């Protein structure tokens, strides 16, 4: 089969741009699941919540959704801290996180989805920005700004998280929690407090990722589910708890999905992340950059 160069080049570009967005979706899971050992399957619910908040503000005042999400990210941070507090008191403290904690997050995911359906209905919502319909061309290569702007902000955000985690005292404390909580306690640091802050950070990234999502495509409450498999696939593929691994895993998944859409049809794309997840679990459970 002869593959036209332009098609191939554009499939790779679309994959990379999409991968940047997937990194924003997964970086929070990488923190909560990979480092804190909190299996927050409700993460996509907060992404969708972020999408709807960006949509409301954009619809009423016409502000740029991504700028809005960055300004409002402290609210998501506080929401995340509160959620972790409930989770800690109800499950982690009693040693029941494995089964009941999972069911708890599943319930949160479900409640958010149904509540959004009750308020906004099941219609697709979208936003309009100045760059929504702009495409920048270089030879045969197309760079739709709808994907490129989220890509740039997302990569900046993920690298920022990486810097925060490796260069600051707080970041080192988070990495220490991931390794040995008891040792941290002996050093006089309260691991619960550290986890609370880190979980807040994880939910804050979800809110921003939600704004990216509604810039990229129209959103309705039920699409959150598709991102559960995706976020965990990226997180496991990249290696548990490795932020740079998450970025790499997101690009791999983005390109794999883009090729699947281009050559087999877009309706098959959601199956790619599950395939990658299962393949990683079966053949290399430690992931690409896993320790």
């Amino acid at each position, binding site marked *: 089969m002869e593959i036209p160069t332009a098609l191939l080049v554009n499939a790779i570009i679309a994959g990379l741009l999409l991968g940047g967005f997937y990194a924003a979706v997964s970086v929070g899971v990488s923190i909560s699941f990979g480092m804190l050992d909190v299996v927050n399957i409700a993460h996509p619910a907060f992404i969708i919540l972020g999408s709807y908040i960006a949509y409301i503000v954009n619809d009423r005042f016409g502000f740029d959704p991504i700028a809005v999400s960055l300004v409002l990210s402290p609210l998501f941070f506080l929401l995340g801290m509160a959620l972790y507090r409930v989770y800690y008191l109800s499950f982690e403290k009693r040693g029941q996180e494995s089964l009941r904690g999972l069911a708890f997050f599943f*319930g949160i995911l479900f409640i958010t989805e149904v509540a959004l359906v009750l308020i906004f209905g099941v219609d697709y919502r979208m936003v309009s920005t100045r760059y929504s319909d702009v495409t920048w061309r270089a030879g045969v290569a197309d760079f739709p700004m709808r994907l490129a702007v989220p890509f740039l902000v997302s990569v900046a955000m993920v690298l920022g998280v990486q810097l925060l985690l490796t260069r600051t005292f707080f970041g080192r404390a988070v990495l220490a929690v991931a390794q040995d909580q008891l040792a941290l306690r002996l050093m006089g640091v309260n691991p619960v407090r550290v986890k609370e802050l880190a979980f807040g950070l994880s939910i804050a990234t979800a809110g921003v990722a939600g704004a990216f999502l509604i810039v990229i495509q129209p959103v309705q409450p039920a699409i959150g589910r598709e991102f559960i498999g995706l976020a965990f696939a990226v997180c496991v593929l990249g290696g548990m708890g490795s932020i740079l691994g998450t970025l790499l895993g997101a690009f791999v998944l983005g390109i794999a999905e883009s090729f699947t859409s281009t050559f087999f049809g877009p309706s098959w794309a959601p199956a790619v992340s599950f395939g990658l997840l299962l393949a990683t*679990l079966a053949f290399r459970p430690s992931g690409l950059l896993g320790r």
Partner: protein
Amino acid sequence: MSNRAFAPVALAVALALAAASQLVTNEYFFTAGYTVLLFVILATAWNILGGYTGYVNFGSAAFFAIGAYTTVALYNAFKAPLPVTIVAGTAVAGLAGLGLGYLTLRLRGVFFAIASLALAVVLYVFVVNWDFVGGARGAYILQPREVPFGMPRYIHLIYSVQLLMVALALVVARAIEHSTLGRGLAAIRDDELAAECSGVPTLRLKIFSAMASCALMGMAGTTFPYYLSYIEPSSAFSLSYAVNSIAMPLIGGMMSWIGPLIGAVLLGTVQQLVQVTVSSAWNLLIVGVLLVLFVTLAPNGIMGWVEAWRRRRER
């Protein structure tokens, strides 16, 4: 009661209930009753892996849909009769559970949970793209005109079949619970490492328990295409099956076979009432809120309260 004695009793009760229900003249009773019974099977099946073994399956809808779509595929291919599709659907769902378990149960428990959730998404995509079973448009299945056993309508038969399946699911769950196998599973739930060290073949037991649980979920789905004579992917893969099959055992109590039964009958009936009187979106919200409330405030469910009350009385 021994397992051997329980089976005929459960079967007799199911047959008696099925016979007694034929006296009900209200058609709606069978429509609502079918749904409640469906949830009893799903909750009982989920509890075999979730409650006894401690592994969370978020993909109940996937296994349910495997059963339903096996019926559609066999009906479209050979006009296969219901008994054949029941056996086939159960077997296919069991095999799917075996495969998923084999791939992910060797790793930390949470990977099984995530993989089961992702499996639901992927199978949905697969069915939407599979034209032979109707794709996204859905498929029609004609109810046979002749209803056996002199029942007036096909829904009466489906309802009675579902009652027998409930009996079977309860017998299987209770048999697993009251056997060496059940004790092995309980050991895995309480401390998997200690169980492994004491010589419990943990992986084999977990995979068996996943297979049994998923097979029963598939069995529950095999009659579903006949229920409305129409099936389409988003109703067959509805997240409400996954939520309900987790919420019901958690609310009823996960330690014995009776908990999911109580939870499913209670929650299933409440949902039918809310669905008729308010709306189906509110009914889903209620399930979600109840799930979160019970799991945070009453982790042992209704049976946990009963146990605590019994212990207090003994003192």
